[in-house]
């Protein structure tokens, strides 16, 4: 635990002493396809008040789960990414266009994911917004469902073009009010269990909560392929799950609250490599 906790009595002080020391993440190094060295541990960005070092969630997973991310042939997310490559080239909507009608290829988007979310025309925009906006405006196509595999496959394909680049989202200027809002959500203790993101992912990363080894809750690997659900999981779906588990009323996927939270959580990972698409338990 890193945050100072108000202590009311001598007995409480005694009990703090028996609190287990913070267990650290493992020492493994992530090199993908034997050539791409990923930064899974680095100095925390200046705006983090209570954490000195940030870690990718990969460092908290078992060796078996970690192994699935070492080679793209073993990475189960790549099937959905392949389907997204097909979708990139497939005409959809009233305008008779595909993504490829306007963009030479997914490679055009190298670096984009590393800087998302960002403010465009006064609105905080995440990747899902960009994709559905282009589908509507340029293609006359129906919007994709936020956490559907078509959407998340395309988010992963675009993210893959930034893999290995450092996460670097802007939090100042126009982004500042959205970032503040996200930070407030991060530290709010929601639900009947009164737990905040920080309780689990800042104060207790490295510790076990029942059978789960808590990470810092970073989103540099999203969308991640989750073995338990056998599909790509969106950031907002993960946020929903974590808030639901505090016995709280969650926010909706694609809500302004989750956009703001996404910006804030992404900024906590500034400096880690974009790892999309990661594999988790």
């Amino acid at each position, binding site marked *: 635990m890193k945050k100072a*906790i*108000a*202590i*009311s*009595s001598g*007995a*409480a002080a*005694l*009990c703090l002493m*028996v*609190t*287990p020391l913070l*267990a650290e993440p493992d020492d493994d190094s992530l090199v993908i396809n034997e050539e791409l060295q990923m930064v899974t541990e680095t100095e925390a960005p200046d705006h983090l008040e209570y954490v000195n070092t940030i870690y990718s969630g990969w460092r908290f997973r078992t060796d078996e789960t970690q192994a699935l991310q070492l080679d793209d042939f073993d990475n189960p997310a790549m099937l959905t990414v392949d389907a997204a490559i097909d979708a990139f080239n497939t005409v959809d909507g009233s305008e008779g266009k595909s993504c490829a009608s306007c963009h030479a290829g997914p490679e055009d988007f190298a670096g984009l994911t590393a800087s998302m979310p960002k403010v465009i025309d006064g609105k905080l925009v995440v990747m899902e917004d960009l994709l559905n906006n282009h589908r509507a405006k340029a293609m006359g196509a129906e919007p994709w469902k936020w956490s559907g595999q078509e959407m998340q496959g395309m988010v992963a394909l675009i993210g893959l073009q930034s893999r290995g680049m450092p996460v670097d989202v802007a939090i100042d200027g126009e982004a500042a009010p959205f970032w503040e809002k996200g930070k407030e959500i991060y530290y*709010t*203790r*929601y*639900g*009947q*269990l*009164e*737990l905040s993101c920080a*309780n689990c992912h800042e*104060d*207790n990363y490295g*510790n*076990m*909560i*029942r*059978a*789960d080894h808590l990470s810092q809750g970073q989103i540099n690997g999203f969308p991640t392929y989750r073995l338990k659900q056998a599909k790509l999981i969106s950031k907002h779906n993960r946020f*929903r*799950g*974590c*808030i*639901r*588990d*505090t*016995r*709280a*009323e*969650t926010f909706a996927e694609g809500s302004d609250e989750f956009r703001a939270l996404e910006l804030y959580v992404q900024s906590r990972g500034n400096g880690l490599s974009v790892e999309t698409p990661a594999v988790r338990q």
Partner: protein
Amino acid sequence: MKKLLFVAATAAVTALPIHADTVAPTNVAFSDGAVSGSLTGVAGDPAEGRILMNKGSGNCIACHAVSALDDLPFHGEIGPPLDGVADRWSEAELRGIIANAKEMFPETMMPSFYKTTGFVRPGNAYTGKAAEGELDPLLTAQQVEDVVAYLLTLKE
């Protein structure tokens, strides 16, 4: 991590008769974090308490290790191990800690098990939807007594 901490309330919660002398969650009197009298007037059952340490709305070992419960898998590391807890705390203090640990340890991460008000966006159990009507406490008054009775068996 579906239902990570506390699985949906067991049938026992609704089946238990409410004793006439039961202290309501909003009426519990704390003194330095402790609650001196029984919440129900009925002695707690340590065997029931042992079950609640693992299951139901207790699931204490999500966060605490207990050597006496070594037959159960996956003890958490969030709170201190509870071995010998009866040597460190009195019955009244343990009751207070279970009912509302924030009275003893301000800002603690430990949930308040006998509290029904003052939450931010309280949900309808683990559905992610808004709570409807009044909330039930995580543990009934008798379940709090059962857990206290179990903790009192944890002596070094």
